[in-house]
Every structure is written in C-alpha cells, then in structure tokens.
C-alpha cells in the first residue's frame, strides 16, 4: 500500500464521478408524469423549473459556500427578459430562452464583482438588499413590467415550430425537462471539473485558498455568473410556459423558498435541489389542498424536521441508508 500502481489515482477519481445506476433510474422516472399523472403536468413543469432554480443556487451555496438571500433577482430578471422579448413580438421560445440567459448572466457578472469581495453575514445582507432593490425597481417601472398587475400580452410561438404550449402542459413539461437535463449535465460536468474542485476548496477553507495561490474572487465571479445564467433560464421557462410574468418572480419570498427547497433536498449534492423541488412542490400542492390558508405552517414543520433529523437534507439522510455503490447520487 506504500505506492500505488501507475494511473491508480486517476482511476480512483474517475470512479468517483461515474454515472450511478440510481441516477439513470432517476432521470427515467422523470418521464413517469406523462403516463401516470397527465393531469399534473403543469405541476411537473413547475417542479422542473424550481429544481433548475435550486440547482443554480446549489452551485454557489452548496459547492462554493456563498450564501444568497437574493437569488430571485436572476430568476425574475430572466423571467421578465423572456416575457418582454415575447411581448415585443419575438415569441420563439428557444432563442427567447437564450436571450434571457445572456441577460441574467450579464446581471450576474456585474453583481459578482461586489459579491466576490464579501462573505458570511455581509454577503447575506448584500444579496438580500440587491434582490429587494431589483424587485422595487420592477414594481416602480410599471410602464415596462406591468407592475403589480404582472406582464400581460406574452404570446409564445410553437416550440420548435411544432408543439403548441397546451393547456395540459405536455409541451411545457417536455420543454422544462429537456432544459433541466441540459443544465444538470452542465452542472455535473462543472462540479466534476478542476473548477468544481476549486469551488469545494473555497467552501472547505477560504483562508487556505490564497495560500495555495488561488484567485478565489475570480472563481466566485465565474460560478456566480454561471449560476445567474441558470437561474435566468429557470425564470424564462416559467415566463414562457405560463405566458405571464409577475413581480413575485423577483420577490424575497422566492429567494427564501429556493433556499428552503435546496436545504430540504440537501445542499452540495447535485440532486439536492431537484429532490427538494419535488418534495416541496408536491407537499405544497397537497397541504394547500387540505388547508389553503395555512399550508406554509406545514412547510415550516417539514423544514424544521428535516434540518433537525437530517442535517444534510433528504438526500444526505438517504445516502446513509443506501449501499456505497448507489451513493453520491
């Protein structure tokens, strides 16, 4: 055991990132709503969108350890961008999505210049303040955003020129699911790259990073921009599939919700955001059916329970129960 066979370290790292059977199973199961619950496809598409939003938060919070209470800024910015592009006459979904991605990315990069300089409590306050600022700006610019009435007149063309966004949500869920999968593949590659390792380094010990010659701020600007792009894409998906944009997309509530979703599922675990989105959205759907006024009470109970008994989220709890070969999913 003193020295390893040539190539062994590389093979070890390779084995850590290979696809697990459970992952394949998970992605196959995302097709089930089409067959088993066709009346819930709208909900399923909202789960996919929330999952994508939480995945983008996971990149900065779960991997780089950057806490944000204003992540809705990028979601809402992407949402309004996609909505406005369609309202102004260009209703083609895929290019609209890309335009929103670029816009959110630019906003993300600009804010990252400030964000990368702070940590901990100051960072929470800055992201919170920035989020509130943008929400208020959108509220007062009602000539552009429609203000509290929301953005009306968003009309989407057929997806790829073929599929109408139907009332049942077939096209919406298929569209959201494909975009989620592509974003997930990107995030998975990023996490398994040298850059992903550097992000974990920042999370694990920000003090040591400069002592190994790392430019942590450059890393943070980069991951923040990428996360903003993903959040913007999630927001754009919501605008396009619902054909409306409300101020709620920029709200503090949405920033807080996505944090809850990620913590529920398990931060720093790639699938945490998506699993959290499934649990949160289904719970919300069920609780609000039982108790329309007080459903958030039950979400509170759920959150406290998970944090107390499963400190690494639902996925962290499951990982302890599963055999090693299935883990790291």
């Amino acid at each position, binding site marked *: *055991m003193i*020295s390893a066979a040539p190539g062994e370290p590389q093979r070890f790292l390779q084995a850590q990132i290979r696809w697990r059977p459970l992952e394949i199973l998970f992605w196959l199961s995302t097709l089930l709503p089409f067959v088993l619950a066709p009346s819930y496809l709208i909900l399923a598409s909202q789960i996919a969108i929330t999952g994508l939003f939480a995945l983008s938060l996971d990149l900065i919070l779960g991997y780089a350890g950057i806490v944000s209470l204003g992540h809705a800024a990028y979601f809402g910015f992407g949402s309004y961008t996609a909505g406005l592009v369609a309202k102004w006459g260009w209703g083609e979904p895929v290019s609209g999505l890309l335009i929103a991605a670029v816009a959110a990315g630019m906003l993300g990069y600009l804010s990252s210049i400030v964000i990368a300089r702070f940590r901990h409590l100051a960072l929470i306050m800055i992201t919170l303040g920035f989020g509130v600022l943008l929400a208020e700006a959108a509220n007062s610019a009602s000539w552009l955003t429609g203000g509290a009435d929301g953005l009306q007149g968003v009309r989407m063309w057929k997806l790829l020129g073929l599929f109408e966004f139907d009332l049942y949500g077939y096209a919406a869920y298929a569209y959201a699911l494909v975009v989620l999968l592509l974003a997930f593949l990107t995030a998975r590659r990023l996490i398994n790259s*040298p850059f992903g390792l550097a992000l974990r380094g920042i999370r694990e010990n920000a003090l040591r990073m400069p002592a190994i010659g790392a430019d942590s701020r450059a890393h943070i600007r980069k991951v923040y921009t990428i996360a903003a792009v993903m959040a913007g894409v999630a927001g754009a998906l919501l605008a396009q599939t619902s054909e409306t944009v409300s101020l709620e997309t920029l709200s503090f509530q949405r920033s807080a919700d996505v944090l809850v979703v990620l913590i529920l599922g398990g931060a720093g675990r790639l699938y945490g955001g998506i699993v959290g989105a499934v649990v949160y959205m289904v719970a919300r759907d069920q609780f609000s059916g039982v108790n329309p006024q007080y459903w958030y009470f039950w979400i509170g109970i759920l959150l406290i329970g998970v944090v107390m008994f499963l400190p690494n989220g639902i996925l962290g709890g499951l990982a302890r129960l599963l055999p090693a070969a299935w883990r790291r999913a």
Partner: protein
Amino acid sequence: MSTLALATRGLDKSFGSLGVARNVTLEVPRGERYALIGPNGAGKTTLINLITGMLKPDRGQILLGAQDITLLEPAERVRRGLVRTFQINTLFPHLNALEAVTLAVCERRGCSGRWWRTLPSYREAIEEAHAILVSMELAASSYRPTRELAYGQQRLLEIALALAARPSVLLLDEPAAGVPQGESADLFSAIENLSQDMTVLFIEHDMNLVFRFAKRIIVMVGGRILVEGTPEEIAADQRVREVYLGRGTRHA
C-alpha cells in the same frame, strides 16, 4: 543581492500601541535553512503573516529575490514562489488528500478555472499530486478525507499543499506543533528531504528540530530580532539564555 532568496527591510507593524514587528530586517540566502525562534508573543507568526501578505506592514519592504513584493496580494506572492504552511492546520476537511493536493497543483498550473473537462482528464496534475503525496509518505492515505487523517499526517499534508505550489521559498510555521513523539519521525524526515534548491525559513519550538535542520538561527523577542547566528553561537549566547532560562521555563 542575487544570492538572496528572501529579505525584509525595516518592517514595522503595530496593533494600536503594541508593536508586533519593530524594524525587522533579515536576509535569507538561496537554498539555506533558517530557523526563527523566540518565546510566545515574540512576533514570529506575525512576521510570517507580514512576509506572506496576510498582514500589511506599516513600514518597510519585503523582497523575494530581487523583486519588491511588499504590495502584492498573498495569492500573487504564492504564484511567485513564496509559500507558507500554518501553525494550526488550515486544510480542506472534506476533500481527500489526493483532491486537496491536486487542487493546489491545478492552481499552480492554471487549470483550476476549467469547468468543461473532468478532473480525471488532467492526468499530469493528478500524477504530480500523487508524487508529492508519495514523497510525504502519505500515499497510503491519499483517498481518505482530510478530517479522518491522523494529526501527524495532517501536518504532513500542510507541507504537501505548500509543495504543490513549487515554492522557491518555503515558510514553515511550527511544522511539528502538537505532533506526538511517535509520529514525529515521518515529519522530520519529510523536512530533511526537502529539495536543497528550496530556501526554508521555519518557526519551531522543538529545539531538536531547530538544531538538527537549521544552518542559522534568528532569535526574536518583543517584535525585534535579538540576535542571528549559527546554532553553536545561539546555544552559547548569553542574551538568548536569559530570554529562555530567565523565565524559568523550558518552553523552548
């Protein structure tokens, strides 16, 4: 001049009225082994923090080779070859040893910003990291998370991370601090086997280590350099005896 690896000129630093570095001027020639000793609170770690840029001096200059690095960011100093370890383990608890050293290697090679290729495809960086772990006798523990390593192994990993940056000047802040007797042999041999091209300045309280490795010793007291000399000169120096023995402790 060109034979100096590291020098400071008139470094001053105070916190309020407390002078933690007072007119510190030192010169370390290339390839030398210097020890920095002195009682607790003498300003040894402060001096390392000043040299590496973690603290900004009020006055004075820091030279790496012929370059003035006084105003550079800590990470930039590391990229120029001035690297430190920490007295209290400053590691990446949930990364395994191989990942941690590969991270440091990637930072030096400039591949740490790449996010479109997987880590295992950077074979050379991984092999280099593994070779460093082998040289530190850590190969058998490569795949274990840092937080699960024995304390002595964590001290070795401190040095391994620094070596991954390919230092020309290595500052070791109490490398043997807290290492139990039984685990110190690996650590001592790791320090002994450091490349002779590398200039090493180390703080240490363990006098065995100091007299075994140092070619010259600098004694600090109250933020000032009291005396510098060969181990024999220091051992015979009356002022040094007073500093240590005058306190009635066998602290050194």
